[in-house]
């Protein structure tokens, strides 16, 4: 079956613009995670959804970052007024119910000029 998909695969934007990143999880996966991976760094947890509820938003770096999820389906990560330090690969992962294994998407590479 289809894996986790993310779009766009690459996004170049100008400083100050808003961007929206999309994640389509595997069908039936209730949990969805967003991570940020900066050059040479590990994965930085951003936010976690269980269904369309976000019990943990503690990883969002600032109030410029927000995320939504529609039911147990697609999620969008929005970054407002982008800054150069937002440049990174944004990874999405989903997990099925009662299973701790994460399935990752290919990521969106964001470049803020």
């Amino acid at each position, binding site marked *: 079956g289809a894996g986790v998909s993310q779009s766009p695969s690459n996004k170049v934007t100008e400083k100050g613009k808003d961007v929206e990143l999309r994640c389509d999880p595997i069908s039936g996966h209730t*949990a969805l995670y967003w991570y940020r991976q900066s050059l*040479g760094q*590990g*994965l930085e947890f951003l936010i*976690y959804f269980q269904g369309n509820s976000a019990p943990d938003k503690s990883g969002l770096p600032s109030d410029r970052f927000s995320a939504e999820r529609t039911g147990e389906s697609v999620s969008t990560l929005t970054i407002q007024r982008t800054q150069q330090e937002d440049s990174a690969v944004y*990874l999405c992962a989903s997990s099925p119910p009662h299973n*701790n294994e*994460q399935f*990752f998407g*290919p990521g969106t590479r964001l470049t803020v000029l």
Partner: protein
Amino acid sequence: AQSVTQPDIHITVSEGASLELRCNYSYGATPYLFWYVQSPGQGLQLLLKYFSGDTLVQGIKGFEAEFKRSQSSFNLRKPSVHWSDAAEYFCALYSSGTYKYIFGTGTRLKVLA
């Protein structure tokens, strides 16, 4: 505090040589542990996982890892490395209390022909 440490940022081995990638964790209970591999431009792929039971776990692509509670370690091993194993490897811990995954900073593997 919960954490995952991968002490080696880069490792270079010759094709056919054995490989061991180190991972140390800090967690208050029995952890759920994972190893992921990330090829350039790709998302993360699960190699293997430890939840409980046998401390030596087998994964895909000929990889194995051993959980050692006394050393708080979960090192990844492969007896004979192939050129296609060149990638970045991440160790991760799942915190059942917070539903978060904590990743190490990764080890980049280079394989010499």
